[in-house]
């Protein structure tokens, strides 16, 4: 959340949306490659299985680590006996991670670990570790934690006061309201479900550690290994050439990484320790829940007047659960009090647009309820209550253009009047995100054989970072993509940040642009005398360096590089303001059909209107938007971390009962990306996943006439809401 706060501050600072002038580094007005669809560079490696992920690293003499975890949601560790495990076949190392006397705070909290020569034997040995626990009272859900007679499980209380926000005159706001809505809205906990589980391969050479690690922060992982192990950071080398998904949960080695390094040291052999699917659900983060009891007022002309909310959520055993509320729309008089509630469950981590899908859902369902009170169309109602438009606040345009494109005029009023059990409806929702750039370094080598090598200590989380680095370098050098070699995913490369907050593209591409421009200037300085011109007269395009005013007067890139002789051009660059922007806005429309006899919801169409500054690669940018929408369909309809209310144990720690969409669940998705080159590069990984679930829930409401105020929209809830309406309730 801290990251997101920074992003939001920046967002406010740069409300104008226009970056500072970038001088000679400015993005080209007529790019050859930027904003065009360019195929992912590592596509062939990924589709053939040649790409080596951390999970695929096999080292000579490598053995396998396995973590022993608490089965209890809350217990005191009385004793840990490794003896039987150490005698088991093939076991090479064993360690106690949680000393006797300490407490485990959630199911899956690590306690001990073993390493053996095969994975099967490591699992056998892990079962032989004898841990004695003294079970302690636990809290399996928010209701238990907030109950008046709840045991105090957390030293400073189960509930912690969070953010408090008050603006305007609430009493006056409600006095001006013609209608008020007073309801409770909530979203659930989901886990990241990275397909490549968290883990690493650790190999020591004396006091030096090499760690192949599945991370979205390769340099920060090296820092954390060094800190935890008490060795110099220069002794740690982290490598992440490919990684199978992170979504905010993979910013460091975590407990399993440190355990892996210690097992490798003890066994004097490389150790691979990849979590299994159950561990991944229990101990690698989740999106916190969010609940708000909201009272909101609207005047008879459809203007929002007041908003009062008590909100809470749980991020597990001691982590916060903040989210923005109200979201987007102008409530001139508002008050919000938030509480973080702790329960005995795995700790939350940032998850794709942390906080925003929750705040969006809580606000957007309310908006449709308010719109019905004043009998306004949901789009018209939102248009009336938007904040001022700006380059990063384009909602009004997206609502209008999107409504036309989606066929919003065919939307019926709340409740599909069609006969039969299948009801259809449409919904709409808006979102925002930061996505600003920040410090990132890059290094460029131009060699005398014409090679151009670009180096940056970033990593490709799957968004296509490797490819956009190549695009920016090739664009700057006037070369084809194949003329550039990219090195990323290694902690020894020039500093770059973690891939989080949609900041990667906006951080990395300016650094590459600056370094490449300076390197090109150095090459121009070599070429200019041979052509009898000034360096400033030269340009690079089409694989040549030539005089601006006379394209035939020049040399090929290769011949230009020959002039370098034995001394290559080596240039460092870093991110600077002017090439990236901050703040994105988007609007999504959803169409859904609901079988009112079974409660099953099917999403049939989604339209996503989205801005993202200067598009670097049209193909991979669109893929991110598709991916965000589909992730949110999962959030809306399928996935749910279910904890047993008695035992505090997760009942679906697998991929069979933790539901995710398959091909047949995916609707027609229409992506409209608004390319805004004048704003510079802005990240797009997170924003498209924010508002989809809210739009779907509003479509279900429009279809059925029943309001489901909590996610996920599982059939039993849909049926219950419909039944309540039929019974004449106040749904």
């Amino acid at each position: 959340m801290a990251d997101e706060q920074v992003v939001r501050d920046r967002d406010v600072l740069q409300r104008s949306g226009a970056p500072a002038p970038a001088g000679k580094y400015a993005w080209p007005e007529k790019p050859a490659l930027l904003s065009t669809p360019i195929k992912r560079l590592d596509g062939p490696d990924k589709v053939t299985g040649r790409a080596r992920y951390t999970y695929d690293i096999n080292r000579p003499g490598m053995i396998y680590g396995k973590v022993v975890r608490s089965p209890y949601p809350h217990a005191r560790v009385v004793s840990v006996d490794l003896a039987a495990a150490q005698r088991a076949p093939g076991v090479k190392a064993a360690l106690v991670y949680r000393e006797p006397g300490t407490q485990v705070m959630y199911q899956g909290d690590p306690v001990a670990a073993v390493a053996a020569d095969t994975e099967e034997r490591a699992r056998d040995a892990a079962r032989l570790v004898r841990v004695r626990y003294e079970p302690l009272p636990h809290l399996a859900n928010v209701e238990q934690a907030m109950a008046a007679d709840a045991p105090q499980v957390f030293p400073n209380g189960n509930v912690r006061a969070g953010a408090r926000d008050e603006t305007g005159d609430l009493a006056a706001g409600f006095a001006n309201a013609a209608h008020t809505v007073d309801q409770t809205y909530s979203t659930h906990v989901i886990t990241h479900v990275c397909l490549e589980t968290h883990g690493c391969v650790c190999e020591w050479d004396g006091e030096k550690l090499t760690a192949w690690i599945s991370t979205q922060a390769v340099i920060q992982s090296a820092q954390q290994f060094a800190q935890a192990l008490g060795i110099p950071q220069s002794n740690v080398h982290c490598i992440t050439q490919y990684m199978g998904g992170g979504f905010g949960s993979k910013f460091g080695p975590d407990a399993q990484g440190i355990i892996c390094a210690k097992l490798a040291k003890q066994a004097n052999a490389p150790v691979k320790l990849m979590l299994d699917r159950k561990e991944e659900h229990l101990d690698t983060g989740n999106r916190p829940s969010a609940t708000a009891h909201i009272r909101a007022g609207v005047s008879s002309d459809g203007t929002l007047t007041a908003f009062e909310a008590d909100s809470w959520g749980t991020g597990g055993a001691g982590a916060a659960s903040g989210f923005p509320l109200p979201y987007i729309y102008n409530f001139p008089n508002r008050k919000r009090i938030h509480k973080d509630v702790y329960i005995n469950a795995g700790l939350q981590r940032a998850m794709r647009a942390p906080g925003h899908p929750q705040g969006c859902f809580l606000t957007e369902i309310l908006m449709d309820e308010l719109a019905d009170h004043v009998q306004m169309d949901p789009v018209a109602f939102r248009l009336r209550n938007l904040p001022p438009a700006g380059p990063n606040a384009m909602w009004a345009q997206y609502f209008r253009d999107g409504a036309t494109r989606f066929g919003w005029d065919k939307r019926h009023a709340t409740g599909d009047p069609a006969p039969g059990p299948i009801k259809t409806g449409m919904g709409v929702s808006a979102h925002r995100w930061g996505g600003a750039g920040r410090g990132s370094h890059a290094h460029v080598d131009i060699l005398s054989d014409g090679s151009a090598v670009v180096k940056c200590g970033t990593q490709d989380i799957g968004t296509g970072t490797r490819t956009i680095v190549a695009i920016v370098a090739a664009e700057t050098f006037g070369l084809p993509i194949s003329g550039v070699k990219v090195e990323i995913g290694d902690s020894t490369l020039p500093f770059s940040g973690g891939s989080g907050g949609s900041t990667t593209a906006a951080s990395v591409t300016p650094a590459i642009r600056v370094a490449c421009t300076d390197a090109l200037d150095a090459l121009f300085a070599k070429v200019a005398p041979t052509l009898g011109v000034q360096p400033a007269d030269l340009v690079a395009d089409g694989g040549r360096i030539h005089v601006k005013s006379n394209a035939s007067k020049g040399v090929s890139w290769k011949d230009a590089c020959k002039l370098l002789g034995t001394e290559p051009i080596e240039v460092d660059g870093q991110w600077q303001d002017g090439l990236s922007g901050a703040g994105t806005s988007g609007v999504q429309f959803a169409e859904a059909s609901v079988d009112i006899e079974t409660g099953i919801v099917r999403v049939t169409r989604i339209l996503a209107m989205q801005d993202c500054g200067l598009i670097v690669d049209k193909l991979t940018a669109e893929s991110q938007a598709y991916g965000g929408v589909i992730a949110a369909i999962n959030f809306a309809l399928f996935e749910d971390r279910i904890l047993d209310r008695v035992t505090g144990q997760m009942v679906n720690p697998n991929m069979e009962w933790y539901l995710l969409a398959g091909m047949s669940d995916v609707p027609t998705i229409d992506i409209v990306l608004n390319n805004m080159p004048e704003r510079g590069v802005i990240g797009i990984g997170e924003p498209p996943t924010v508002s989809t679930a809210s739009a779907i829930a509003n479509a279900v409401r429009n279809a059925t006439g029943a309001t489901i105020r909590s996610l996920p929209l599982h059939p039993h809830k849909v049926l219950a809401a419909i039944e309540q309406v039929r019974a004449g309730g106040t749904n």
Partner: protein
Amino acid sequence: MKSAGVTSIATAVTSVAVPDAGAQIGPAVLGPGDVPVALTVNGKRVDLKIEPRVTLLDALRTRADLTGNKRVCDRGTCGACTMIVDGRTVYACSTLAIEAQGKEIRTVEGLSSGNALHRVQQAFCDVDALMCGFCTPGFVVATVAVLEKHPNATREQISKGLDGNICRCGTFVRIMEAALKAQGVARG
């Protein structure tokens, strides 16, 4: 749904539990120690000595360094491990290696020849039907299997053939595009 080799697992577990192998009626007991296993993978013979409980996926990934197919759910749900065995797709994470002996096993590594991609692989690259890429080998193999079975597959047939695979990045729209595109190439 893909075959998950459930019967094989049950057989193996029962066999290990039989105390006196000599008195047993039925197939000989294998294990619990290492046993020789001969597999035919992508047309090549692979000889291994492994415990009978080792899955086809783990045998190839950890003993034969064929790491293209991935382990994700490890319980026959997500399809990242999809291989084609005797012409049928299977979840290799839930198939025992010993049960795959004498069968033709095709993994993602067997689809391309040298630098020439299989048309399905090429289509995945062309339309960006992948992001992090961890589910991709399973989807590629499953798509190949669908199109081999239904050279003129409808959208519905492709959907059904790929419903046993899960992608977390959300590449489904473009996987469908890729499957249709690869099929187009096949027709042409």
